[in-house]
């Protein structure tokens, strides 16, 4: 894992102290709310429906057990004993008091964490594959590049006042788990014809009220040119992106309005000036950062498949968990474990301080003290010996963390919605919980198979509903909560935006609508076909018929 150098530490500590002075001036009345608001937002502090909300960056979703314990401590000391993991791999606290934020930030700085650039029109936390460094299908570890981007983009003076916020995602695997096609910039590593690894550069993807799948503007970019190329893109956007209308100011609108070809030409012209500047990455720097992500010394282990099979045969619940929550590790004898934060007990992505400490302890006991947050609001323990999976599962269960539903119907992504968010039109969490409650029978959940449901409480689409296989968008219709459905969305390699089914449903009918969509799928699916494949094969009509009756 990357360790802060002197420069990083000084930066976050000084920033926390600077904010301490700003808060003091605000509380004394020296600064008005109008003057203070941009300052607090630059430090990730929002004002929501009930209180201030603080968004803390988890760089590319990676946490040490020490950091996780600190997050738990913060939840207890400064909040109401829990936190919310977001679709951008960050954590949000919902009940933070302004007066206490300076102390909180100072505590975060002790574990190399901060909230800088977690809000505002700047380059936000770079997101990545939660299986980075351990996935069996990985070409190269994307965290190296995420860290390089993090250092370049942190307090980048030229890009601290962009037309709008800016999100970058990186994947090092052909199986995209980082949703790179729906980010402002998506980087996908692959090999060129000479077998050299480099980046496909995808620009202008995004969700919100005008969703777009990104356009590839460069098929292959040599890694040493990564920063100069990113800088060229940001320059074009910074200069030409619209600033007259906040709904039209994301890079996706610019790319869409001028066209990907014109955009590419502008970038290439800019890049010609930049490519051989000091932004060109020397191999020594790439090596230095790579060394931070060197794989741990894995004790040799035999493949434990036979043992697991026999354990699973005796325990159907364990078998189900193995089936849904375990991913293949690149090292024999090890497994990647997904911890579901989608039990019935709490809103999607929410975790109590006690659970955070438990997860941190388990990361130490069954791994190398590392955890990951993924963009579907779950956690990952990346390095678990296969022969210890049963033991780990039993312990996870005692903490309410053993739900066997990753990638399945009850693994619902939901934004905070109107229960917390001041921009919301409707609630998201209760709908997620009702669906979850409706699908508690594990056999049924596993029979339905791979399926993603995403819920957003407004057009801003923080719940990524456009790319859910079933997307649900909360709207306000004459003072009542309604839910519109989209089908066929996906954020993986086969990224697609969902299509609207038709008129929305009142809250009381929303879960029945989900049931009806799933029943239609089960009726029409061919053998092992996933929901999204059935949808792509049969189209919208049968689903509309089920939802609204024959036309």
């Amino acid at each position, binding site marked *: 894992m990357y360790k802060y150098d002197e420069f990083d530490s000084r930066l976050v500590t000084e920033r926390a102290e600077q904010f301490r002075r700003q808060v003091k001036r605000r509380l004394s009345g020296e600064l008005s709310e109008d003057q203070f608001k941009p300052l607090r937002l630059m430090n990730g502090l929002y*004002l929501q*429906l009930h209180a201030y909300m603080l968004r803390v960056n988890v760089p590319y979703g990676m946490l040490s057990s020490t950091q996780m314990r600190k997050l738990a401590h913060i939840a207890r000391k400064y909040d109401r004993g829990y936190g919310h993991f977001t679709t951008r791999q960050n954590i949000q606290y919902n009940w*933070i008091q302004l007066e206490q934020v300076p102390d909180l930030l100072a505590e975060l700085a002790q574990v190399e964490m901060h909230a800088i650039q977690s809000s505002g029109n700047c380059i936000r936390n770079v997101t990545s594959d939660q299986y980075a460094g351990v996935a069996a299908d990985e070409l190269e570890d994307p965290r190296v590049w995420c860290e390089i981007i993090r250092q370049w983009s942190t307090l980048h003076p030229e890009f601290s006042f962009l037309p709008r916020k800016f999100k970058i995602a990186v994947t090092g695997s052909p199986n995209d788990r980082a949703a790179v096609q729906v980010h402002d910039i998506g980087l996908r590593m692959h090999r060129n014809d000479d077998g050299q690894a480099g980046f496909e550069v995808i620009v202008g993807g995004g969700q919100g009220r005008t969703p777009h799948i990104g356009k590839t503007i460069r098929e292959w970019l040599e890694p040493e040119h990564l920063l100069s190329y990113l800088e060229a893109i940001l320059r074009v956007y910074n200069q030409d992106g619209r600033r007259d209308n906040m709904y039209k100011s994301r890079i996706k609108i610019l790319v869409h309005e001028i066209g990907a070809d014109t955009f590419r030409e502008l970038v290439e012209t800019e890049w010609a000036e930049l490519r051989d500047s000091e932004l060109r990455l020397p191999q020594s720097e790439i090596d230095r950062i790579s060394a931070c992500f060197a794989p741990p010394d894995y004790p040799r282990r035999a493949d434990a498949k036979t043992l697991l099979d026999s354990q699973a045969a005796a325990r159907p619940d364990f078998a189900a968990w193995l089936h849904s929550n375990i991913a293949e590790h690149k090292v024999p004898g090890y497994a990647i474990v997904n911890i579901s934060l989608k039990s019935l007990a709490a809103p999607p992505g929410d975790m109590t301080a*006690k659970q955070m400490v438990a997860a941190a302890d388990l990361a130490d006991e069954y791994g190398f003290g590392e955890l990951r947050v993924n963009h579907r609001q779950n956690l990952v323990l990346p390095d678990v010996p296969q022969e210890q999976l049963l033991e780990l599962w039993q312990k996870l269960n005692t*903490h309410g963390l053993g739900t066997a539903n990753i990638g399945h119907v009850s693994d619902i992504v939901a934004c905070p919605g109107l229960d*917390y968010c001041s921009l919301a039109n409707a609630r998201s969490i209760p709908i997620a919980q009702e669906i979850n409650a409706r699908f508690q029978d594990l056999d049924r959940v596993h029979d339905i198979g791979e399926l993603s449901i995403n819920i957003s409480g407004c057009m801003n689409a923080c719940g990524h509903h456009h790319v859910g296989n079933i997307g649900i968008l909360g709207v306000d219709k004459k003072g009542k909560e309604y839910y519109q459905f989209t089908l066929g969305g996906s954020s993986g390699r086969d990224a697609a935006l969902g299509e609207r089914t038709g008129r929305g449903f009142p809250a009381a009918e929303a879960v029945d609508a989900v049931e009806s969509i799933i029943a239609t799928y089960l009726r029409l699916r061919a053998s092992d076909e996933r929901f999204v494949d059935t949808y792509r094969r049969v189209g919208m009509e049968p689903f509309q018929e089920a939802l609204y009756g024959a036309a």
Partner: protein
Amino acid sequence: MLSLMPQIVIANSLADGFVVFLTASNGWSSRVRDATVAHDDADAEVLLRSAKAAAENNLVIDPYLIAVELKGDAPEPTEYREYIRVFGPSVAIPSGQ
């Protein structure tokens, strides 16, 4: 429409951010039953003016009027957004585990 309904002033307290209500003594309380109720638009204007002064004096942020119904012993917002602001999230706060 607002004018036909009783109204109260809601805001966030500056220092801790929590939701507060303007009281009859021109103070702020976190309990909605302490809120002072305006029964017509003229009264409501007076309340809002005093709330805005409190905002300028850096006690609260973003005060505004909301329509309420007077049921039981506490005013109840008529709009569900405000209802959630007043009574908290409609889902349980995670605890225990």
